[in-house]
């Protein structure tokens, strides 16, 4: 099934160009607008990226609904997994923000499973990885970035600007340190989004190349890349989790910095 879907998508991509199959792993990241629409100048076109984002989010929602269709005191397997996920996020929030992080729990919870399921559904052959789109990860990261700025000013007023002035430094060093602090702060959303985007793009590119070889090489030659691609899919499942985890942890760290200002 893996092989055939890859082959079909490769064929479909190149049938129009009327060319022989050639390696183009990047076409996995090609956004295709299925429905173009832009009411009031707002582009709300529905593309493969958006559709797979919805599939991922529906999977998150229905996974939890299904796991808790009949909540038991002694949980079944699905319920245990769902509860473990819940406790995992609660642990991250407690550890990185503390008791004042309670209001942010739903957001962090949503963020983690949003990213995790987008990473994972992207491993289904023929699917699309929404988190391999820099604009998607950047939207999430900038949302967190602006939230942290808002929280900082909301909680501390103008004292939040002290965030950029390291305490206990000689005044002479301040002209050096303040720009560095500002750069570090601005780098947060960028590195947050680039890290996720780059990991997803790299992983899926490698998978795409392996699948391409598996699909196009003659019979015997295809087994080796196919074996590699199976192993690498397992690695990608792990990386998808780790990246979602890092994204979530850093979100909590940023929120915590804005709430508590100890820097």
């Amino acid at each position, binding site marked *: 099934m893996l092989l055939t879907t890859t082959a079909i998508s490769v064929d479909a991509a190149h049938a129009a160009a009327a060319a022989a199959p050639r390696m183009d792993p990047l076409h996995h990241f090609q956004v295709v607008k299925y429905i173009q629409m832009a009411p009031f100048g707002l582009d709300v076109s529905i593309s493969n990226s958006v559709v797979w984002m919805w599939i991922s989010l529906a999977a998150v929602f229905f996974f939890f609904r299904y796991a808790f269709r009949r909540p038991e005191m002694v949980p079944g397997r699905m319920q245990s997994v769902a509860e473990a996920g819940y406790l995992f996020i609660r642990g991250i929030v407690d550890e990185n923000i503390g008791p004042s992080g309670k209001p942010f729990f739903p957001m962090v919870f949503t963020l983690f499973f949003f990213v995790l399921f987008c990473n994972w559904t992207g491993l289904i052959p023929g699917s699309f990885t929404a988190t391999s789109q820099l604009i998607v990860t950047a939207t999430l990261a900038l949302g967190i970035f602006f939230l942290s700025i808002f929280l900082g000013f909301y909680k501390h007023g103008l004292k939040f600007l002290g965030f950029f002035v390291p305490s206990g430094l000689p005044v002479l060093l301040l002209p050096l340190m303040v720009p560095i602090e500002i*750069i570090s702060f601005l*780098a947060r959303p*960028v*590195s947050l989004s*680039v*890290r996720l985007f780059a990991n997803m793009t790299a992983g899926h590119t490698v998978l795409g190349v392996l699948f391409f070889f598996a699909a196009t090489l003659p019979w015997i030659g295809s087994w080796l890349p196919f074996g590699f691609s199976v192993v690498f899919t397992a690695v990608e499942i792990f990386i998808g989790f780790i990246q979602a985890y*890092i994204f979530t942890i850093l979100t909590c760290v940023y929120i915590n910095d804005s709430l508590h200002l100890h820097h």
Partner: protein
Amino acid sequence: MATDMVVATLIGVGMGHYLDEWLGLHPWMTVLFFLFGAVAGFRAVYRAAQEGSSQAP
């Protein structure tokens, strides 16, 4: 970690370039902020390394 390094440096360069355009000081601000960015990047890597392996890739 590598991401932190590259991103911080690029942001430094970008800010320096913008300041140069604004103040007409080519290329000094770009050079200065490249250094700031590099320091910020190194510091991020250093902190990540100190905090342990949780933020490895």
